[in-house]
């Protein structure tokens, strides 16, 4: 009996070996590390949306060492290029989100996992780029949806810090840096608190006056500092020093203003100060004062589009219609999600804006070339043009359409693998092994 058992065991072991060896090799294949690669690529036979030079029906793009070196219908494919046939697909410049905390926020409710807000009201010298985690789980989750570049920004206080553009591929912040920075300022607001704690009009006014004084004191000092900069007498004053490039017109200033009153007040403030590279952000009530914004010539980054109207008395679709109203009034508009983990929904915010008055073409510009130009990287990204960085995605159709799939992705010329933790979980759990049999008994129930 025992011998028989042993035989069975040996047999079983042999069987196991037979079964496991091929499995092991398979497993190895499963665990293969997917790496991005650089090189000379030819993307052929696709419908190319250049954004700046129309649509090429059956076009080719040549990427060499990160740069787009040729685009067109009759492009000669270099002999040493790796060719990708994208017949039936559409190619777009990578989408750009004009306002996120991507890379700075990992898990919302855990303060240790959030690095977008520093202590104090005046912290413009704080560098978002420093705190970008290149290995944030949210980054691959975002880029596989075609978003290749974002404005990642500090929040909170009056002068929150210095934001930066980042490409969503790279292993250090410097590899990701997309080439521009700007100071983030929250214009002293008349908006009344949050849902959990509403403020009285008196409290709001008091808070606003206090913040306005802080703002003006800081900028007065910065203007003085700019004049004294080369003097030996000036001691280091980091938060004021950080503002000097704005005073000199060398750096962008992003002013967050949402209530109509605040938008108008901030436009007047900018005019009075005479700062040159200014962008209005948020601008939730821009539709109320669209003409005034257009007249000021200040560009706008607005969003989220999928948002509740700012006032109970507003039409239900005020936030959907806002980008279109501003754009039609002549404002240069880019969009943002103001998100961290769901920046991937940028094309849907654009789609909603398109459906509620902006139109598809303007909405596409709002998350490509307009965003690039407003963020100061219009010479590098935002369209498919010779000489620009190869930030490109390939889609099965219109990327705003919900069911469309992004099939291929190039960031800074690297062909980036189309995977993320969410995709890997899908692959593992769609048909889980083992399935239910092992545990069926534990949760069996006598049906009533």
């Amino acid at each position, binding site marked *: 009996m025992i011998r028989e058992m042993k035989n069975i065991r040996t047999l079983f072991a042999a069987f196991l070996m037979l079964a496991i060896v091929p499995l092991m090799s398979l497993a190895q294949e499963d665990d293969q590390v997917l790496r991005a690669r650089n090189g000379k690529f030819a993307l052929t036979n696709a419908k190319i949306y250049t954004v700046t030079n129309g649509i090429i029906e059956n076009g080719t793009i040549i990427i060499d060492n990160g740069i787009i070196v040729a685009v067109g219908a009759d492009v000669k494919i270099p002999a040493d290029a790796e060719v990708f046939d994208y017949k039936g697909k559409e190619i777009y410049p990578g989408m750009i989100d004009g306002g996120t905390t991507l890379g700075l926020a990992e898990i919302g409710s855990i303060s240790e996992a959030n690095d977008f807000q520093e202590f104090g009201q005046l912290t413009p010298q704080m560098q978002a780029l420093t705190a970008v985690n290149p290995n944030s789980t949210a980054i691959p989750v975002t880029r596989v949806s075609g978003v290749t570049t974002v404005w990642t920004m500090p929040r909170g206080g009056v002068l929150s810090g210095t934001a930066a553009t980042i490409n969503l591929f790279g292993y250090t912040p410097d590899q990701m840096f997309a080439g521009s920075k700007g100071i983030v300022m929250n214009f002293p607001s008349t908006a009344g608190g949050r849902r959990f704690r509403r403020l009285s009009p008196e409290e709001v006014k008091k808070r606003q006056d206090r913040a306005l004084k802080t703002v003006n004191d800081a900028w007065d000092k910065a203007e003085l500092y700019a004049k004294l900069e080369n003097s030996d007498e000036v001691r280091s004053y980091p938060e004021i020093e950080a503002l000097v490039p704005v005073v000199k017109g060398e750096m962008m200033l992003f002013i967050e203003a949402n209530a109509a009153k605040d938008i108008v007040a901030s436009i007047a403030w900018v005019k009075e100060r005479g700062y040159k590279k200014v962008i209005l952000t948020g601008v939730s009530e821009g539709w109320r004062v669209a003409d005034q914004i257009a007249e000021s010539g200040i560009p706008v980054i607005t969003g989220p589009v*999928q948002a509740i109207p700012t006032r109970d008395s507003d039409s239900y679709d005020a936030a959907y219609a806002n980008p279109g109203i501003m754009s039609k009034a002549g404002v240069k508009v880019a969009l943002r999600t103001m998100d961290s983990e769901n920046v991937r929904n940028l094309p849907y915010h654009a789609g909603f804006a398109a459906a509620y008055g902006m139109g598809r073409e303007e909405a596409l510009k709002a998350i490509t070339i307009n965003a690039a130009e407003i963020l100061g990287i219009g010479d590098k990204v935002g369209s498919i043009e010779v000489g620009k960085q190869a930030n490109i995605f390939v889609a099965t159709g219109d990327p705003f359409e919900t069911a469309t799939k992004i099939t291929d992705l190039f960031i800074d010329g690297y062909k980036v693998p189309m995977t993320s933790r969410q995709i890997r979980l*899908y692959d593992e759990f769609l048909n889980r092994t083992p399935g239910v049999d092992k545990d069926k008994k534990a949760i069996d129930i*006598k049906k009533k």
Partner: protein
Amino acid sequence: MKNILTLLLAFFSTMALAQVQKGDLLIKNGTVLTVTNGTLENTDVLVRDGKISRIGKDLRAPRGVETVDATGKFVMPGIIDAHSHIAGSAINEGTSQVTAEVSMEDVVDPLDVGIYRALAGGVTSIHLMHGSANVIGGQNETMKLRYGTMNPDELRFEGAPRTIKFALGENPTRGGRSRGIQPQSRMGVENMLRTSFTQAIAYGKKWDAYNADKSPRKVAPEYDLRMQTLVDIMNGDVLVHCHSYRADEIYMLMKVFSDFNIPKLTFQHANEAYKVAPELAAFGASASVFADWWAYKLEVYYSTAYNAAILTNNGVLTSINSDSGELIRHLFHEAAKTQKYGELTDDQALALITLNPAKQLGIDNRVGSIEVGKDADIAIFEGHPLSVYTVPLMTFIDGVKYFDKSIDKGDARIYVGPESSISEVMIYDRHNDHRCLEGANVMAFEELFSNKK
């Protein structure tokens, strides 16, 4: 005096039995997305007395019945949100870890302009849920969004089964920690559930013995609404909808329900339900999930937007909900995301926001599809509702129109109180839009239960 009382009583009882308006209507020549019977091109839907009476081609409008031309438009069943906190003037009763005795039916706010915004997204029914501050929360209220009345009773989904909110994981354990009581861990959550049901069994036995006792001198046991509600749950009279995220806690609750013989169970949020999809299918439990929300707390960090598709493909009854006054306005778009994340068919995606939530709420005999005999809760869209460019045009409940984009007047408030201000501006922030813990004020907990005082 007695007469006055009788009069008053009569007055209040008529108020409670408010007559719900029912409509007649012919929707002509639309593309009808029935959900249960595929897509019908160039088809008419006739509504009589609030019910769908005929579906077919070239139907004639009976005399006096209004016709809506839906040529080139899409007609679908009204959207049902299985997890909402709009139209609730309170969300959490957090004074105990078990508050089965309270009910959202007492806090329905018919004036919330969020109701109109939801209607403008094609939503006709919501499941107004208690919050997630405690393990066994309050009872929920299933509603129809009959906006335009000051009477909360007119918004009730008459005849809908009773439901109750449970909550597992971080929310109830956070409450336990801040108060220095159980539960502070997922172990404590399970213990609290088992203890509560065991107590309720003992309570039920006392009443059973009393009811069986023929003695004229028998004395009734003390009535306890909290315990009675738990008994009702075990009898299958109250459906449990449980806030949950992690696979282990989802599995735990199935085992507890198995042990206490509770047959029906819906997991709310259930971000990790995909990990135990085979178990959910075997148990017959269902899930009501987000399309893509994740990472807002640790227990949703290992989420995947493919959750709904994995669950559906494993045979788990699944719906997509909002838990948000913003998302509720575009649940059709949230459902469409399952076509990107998991390639669900149109019918599967539409069922996630219509028939499936109806089943989870026990109202699928009334709503959730366009079928003869069902309530005429219908939404009409410009463009296919699963397209990002779609625009909801009209929303009907019981054949009565509650939203019409072409005559939308902007300010949709039905009551402007003296404290309202047209200039009050609230900036929307998605990360403050999870209302499950609203009102579960942790400071108040501490004051209530602090040993120092």
